[in-house]
């Protein structure tokens, strides 16, 4: 993933250690933001990169963090709609999801900056 996160490695909220997210999987976290709290699904790609989008599937509320991913898309486990993790656009005709800033800091911590 070409840099979803352009901020410095120390910005954002630390949600977990990268080692807690097995490669190729996702986990969901609650992240405080200006507008209250947001639920964010963070994915750990097999090539070591991370991405983050809204955790709630816009189609019917499915848990996107439990979906399967590859280097570009996430597949919702409930009805198998797909979203591009870089842009948040659906590749199966659903509403888009927000893409959140995410990076890994020097201590191996995953940091999320809500969009």
């Amino acid at each position, binding site marked *: 993933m070409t840099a979803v996160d352009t901020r410095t490695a120390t910005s954002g909220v630390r949600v977990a250690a990268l*080692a*807690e*997210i*097995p*490669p*190729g*999987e*996702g*986990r*969901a*976290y*609650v992240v405080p933001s200006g507008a209250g*709290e947001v*639920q964010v*699904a963070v994915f750990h790609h*097999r090539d070591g990169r991370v991405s983050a989008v809204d*955790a*709630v599937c*816009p*189609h*019917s*509320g*499915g*848990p*996107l*963090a*439990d*979906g*399967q*991913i*590859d*280097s570009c*898309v*996430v*597949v919702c*486990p*409930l*009805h*198998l*709609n*797909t979203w591009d993790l870089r842009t948040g656009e659906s590749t*199966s*005709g659903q509403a888009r999801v927000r893409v959140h800033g995410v990076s890994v800091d020097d201590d191996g911590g995953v940091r999320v900056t809500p969009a």
Partner: protein
Amino acid sequence: MKKEQGSTKRLVLVGNGMAGARLLEELLERGAGDLFQITVFGDEPYGNYNRIMLSHVLAGEDGEESIYLNELGWYAENGIELRAGVRVDDVDLPAREVVDADGGRTPYDVLVIATGSSPHFPPMDGLRREDGSLLPGVSGFRSLDETRAMLEEARRYGTGTTPAKAVVIGGGLLGLEAAKGLQNHGLDVTVIHSPAHLMNQQLDADAGAVLRRSIEEAGISVVTGARTTGLTACTEQSGSGRVSGVVLKDGRSFPADMVVVTAGIRPNTDVGLRAGLVVERGVVVDDQMRCVDQPETPAGPGQVYALGECAQHRGETYGLVAPLWEQATVLADVLTGADPDAAYHGSRTSTKLKVAGVDVAAIGQAGPEHPDDEHVVFSDVRRGLYQSVVVRDGRLVGATLLGDTRKTAALQQVFDRGLPLPEQRVELLFDLGATAEGSVEDLADDAQVCNCNGVTKGDICGAVASGCSSVKGVMDATRAGKGCGSCKEVVSTIVEHAVAAGGGALTEDPSVHWYVPGVPLRKDELVAAIREQHLTSVSSVFAALAPGGAEDAKSKMGLTSLLRTLWPTEFVDERDARFINDRVHANIQRDGTFSVVPQMKGGVTTPDQLRRIADVADKYGVGMLKVTGGQRIDMLGVRKEDLPKVWEDLDMPSGYAYGKSMRTVKTCVGTDYCRFGLGDSTALGIALEERFQGIETPAKLKLGVVGCPRNCAEAYVKDVGVVAIGGGKWEVYVGGAAGASVRKADLLATVDSPEAVIQLTGRFIQFYRTWGNWLERTYDFVPRLSIERVRLVLVEDSDGMCAQLDEEVDAACAAYRDPWKEREAPDAPGRFSAPALPLLPLPVVPRRPMGAPGGTPREQLPVEIVMPNEEALVSGAMAGAQQ
């Protein structure tokens, strides 16, 4: 077992035929043994037998002993006094007594008349002798005695050097059965029928003509439109005055050594008439089967009822058994007070029979009766096929099927429920490949084509307009056809039309042949490459075989399944390549919670298991406890975090209700308890489930074992179905389905032992694992290869691969490990503890009402469902998953 007088009422039943006996059974079922002291008068000197079976007895297919429903002992056991062989002559209504032929009087409180019918003998010269008895050699076809006598004569005459001749007068259902029966014994049979075509009660002229041809092809001569007016007899010296032939009105005559008269039946109403009840064609009854206008008696209103063929209800008398069953139920409800308001509303008669070897089904009216009736007919005389439907005002009012009656059930349902009909009426009779073809153009744009995913025709056309030119492309873009798959054909047709309408050409996406979309290889090519390069993990397959080494989310699940099959022990398990269900060994539900289905081998459980399930359900606030279609118990609404604890407390193995794997083996009661059981289906089912538990397959696999062909556990519609047929033999069926598609399985082989069943099943499973495409159910796999081919390979070992298959399936079974044991050591941090959702309180999923069964309140609020669509859920995540 005689009951005390006074505490019970006296019920007297006149007539011990099919209706009477059924009434007794229905009464006993409702506890009437304690309410009534029952006396039964039966003219025939037997217990009760199945009259329908007389056709088989005459044909020599069944012995007399096999047709008894209730033998004499049954009556005694149930405290019923049976006066077998005693005819009732009269009823003294005011005195409430029946008078029998011996002059005995029997008092009653409740009287039921079920005297049935007798054969009708049309007036014919020479039919009777001076004393009024029938000419020797002439018989009706109604009772066991008549059948016995005919059978004896037929056997005697049928063995002569020149075939003896029999004439059957009347070409209805009974006549044709009699003809076939006599022919079986070697007689040369002619049916003489006075209406213009055979079975004119049920069939129209065209159908009758087709039937006639089939009957004639079977070697029976048919004469129609011909009335028999006289019988001739041999002289007393030469043949003891037996019948010698028949004479028709037009002067023709036919020689006959035997004559059977089946020219209709007449209700036996003499008892009713003598009693002074209202009698028209039959004894007239109301909706509660009570005889109408009964004289008041000193003891109150009349308590006389009638049912069966002797009764006339709303102007109808019946000549088949189905209506009698309904009448017996109603009357038993009324008499016992089980349902005092029970009412009989008449029966729509329909017939599904094998007449003289020909399948015939007749529903409702035989042909058009009004000028506006639509009549759709298909007829193929040479092949003995005739099928027709009659439609009035958009409703099916009649159907006739001859030669091929497979559509009967479907048509019966449409007829009974008045279901809407397809625009193309002919679709009622045939599943045309062109079903979609004919009608897609008529579909409105907003007509929903894929119900699983809510895709309309407009959506499909839209996808074509925006550039998709292949069926696969449109399915990917719209997800049409990706649920249960039953609409695929319609979707293809719509795409074809839309592409053609746009002036384009339909393209085939080469990926339809690939095993998974992300690796451009067919299954056989893929397997070869994986073996050759020794690829044991999903990521290594992508790296070696996918274009640019790119991984593909939608291919992961299929690859996981394949690698597991190819490398039972060496497989490198990468959890991200598993679908969520297989990561956490439970089935994800629409609110993000999971369902837990413990193994319950063969659907057999114990009080201890049930207690544990109950305790767990209480402890973890299980939203709904449900008995599944697979004979076990589903605990729905379990939070991911709770899964390991739930398994621990249950301490039962996983039932694999979530995987693309062997799910469950349904069994019937089998020999231990069932009085029909021919094989121990339960034990075999348990053995099968134990052996093949959890084994991965290209798509889910459901098994069934039944103890006899009554098929209580639906083995004929399973991926593998096993049926005991007696003598230690078992039939093994494969490729059945009863989900979105319904298909009767094909018989693979009949084997001699449970061990052989297990071996053949294993061989089939491994064969399917090796050659089945990802998500290809056996009901597509078996027809794709053809059952003949599957049989050659697996039973005859034509390709010499049986030994290898047996070995491979052994290895796969040996690699089984209960996934729920992972609770002790999850593969990754947060595997269960990290909830995916809900993290914030969100509006609640509509729950089953509080207080409803299973509606346990839960404090935890799951997420809101934006667009509830259970259908899509059911099919989306599993069947169409990750194509």
